[in-house]
């Protein structure tokens, strides 16, 4: 499997992304993956010099967003054709697959991955949904606004490592 160990998880509201996290599952150690600036500190010991790898990362990041974006169109078309929250894989581009989960209030969870099991992803989404619901019960959290909670971010990353590594 030449699939990338890096997962991209995005929560999309009515018009814009509310949350995103790039999660490197290649190393089980407690690195702190960052969703900014290409995650150069990953130390995911692999081929190439650091700078080469960084370029590679940036390239794939851009591709990833492109894939997610086109998948979103497909999701929008299918939201009223099934009552399941979990929509499974909605789009495939090369090695990359996009799995999606839609909440009761039509907030979309999207995961870009290289072919993880459907059950595993379902469980991941289920756990994230629990965190999302609790977050959304917070009086200070307004529906369809960016998610700034550090606690939420930490839980999502931990869940990704637990289910998707």
């Amino acid at each position, binding site marked *: 499997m030449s699939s990338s160990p890096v997962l991209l998880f995005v929560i999309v509201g009515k018009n814009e992304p509310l949350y995103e996290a790039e999660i490197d599952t290649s190393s089980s150690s407690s690195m702190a993956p960052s969703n900014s600036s290409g995650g150069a500190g990953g130390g995911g010991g692999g081929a190439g010099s650091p700078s080469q790898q960084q370029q590679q990362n940036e390239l794939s990041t851009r591709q990833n967003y492109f894939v997610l974006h086109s998948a979103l169109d497909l999701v929008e078309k299918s939201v009223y054709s099934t009552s399941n929250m979990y929509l499974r894989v909605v789009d495939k581009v090369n090695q990359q697959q996009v799995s999606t989960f839609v909440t009761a209030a039509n907030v979309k969870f999207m995961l870009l991955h290289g072919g993880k099991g459907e059950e595993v992803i379902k469980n991941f989404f289920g756990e994230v949904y629990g965190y999302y619901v*609790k*977050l959304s*019960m*917070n*009086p*200070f*959290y*307004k529906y369809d*606004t*960016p998610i*700034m*909670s*550090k*606690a939420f971010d930490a839980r999502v990353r931990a869940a990704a490592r637990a289910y998707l590594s």
Partner: protein
Amino acid sequence: MSSKMQASQAGQALWSKMPKANAELFALTYGSLVTELVRDYEDPIEVNAQLDRIGHSIGVRCVDELLSKADVAGMGLATQCQNLRDTAEVVAKVGFKMFLGVQAEVGGFSQDQRSFSIYLQDNPLATFVELPAAGDEQYNGDDLRKLKYSNLYCGVIRGALEQVNLKVECNIVRDTLKGDEVNEIRVELKEVLADGAGDDYKEE
């Protein structure tokens, strides 16, 4: 010592008779009030003051409900509040219990017996609350560190005790929303108001 027992038994008995409402609707409705205040008054200190004011108006009314229901149940709490220790027990074990269904504890009496703390493990006002992080654009997250989300309690206690002629000052000194392990409300007796029922109140 026996007052401790009595108070928590009385609280439990009264709570079991109270008609109930959904605790989530309660927390969300309070949340709606607080966030509205935060929007209207930008300064969190002012929001705290408003919550205290609102709590005061509740406290004035709910002490009547407490005393009359206790009276109907033949508990005679009014005569039990002969000193600040007993009063504190009634606030924590009867008041919090009968209205919110949670157990509060009393402790931390000062040497002069004029101030004490109420400790609250579960806070029904703040069930879902996480204060906005610094840098949250929607709210001025930095400033909201100064917000005392549950400051309503202070007003309620102040208002309720005022009705029984005790002028107190009340402050939230520990708050689980800010990482503390427990909620602690510090109550300090300022003055025993002279009139009516307060006459037989012994300060010691």
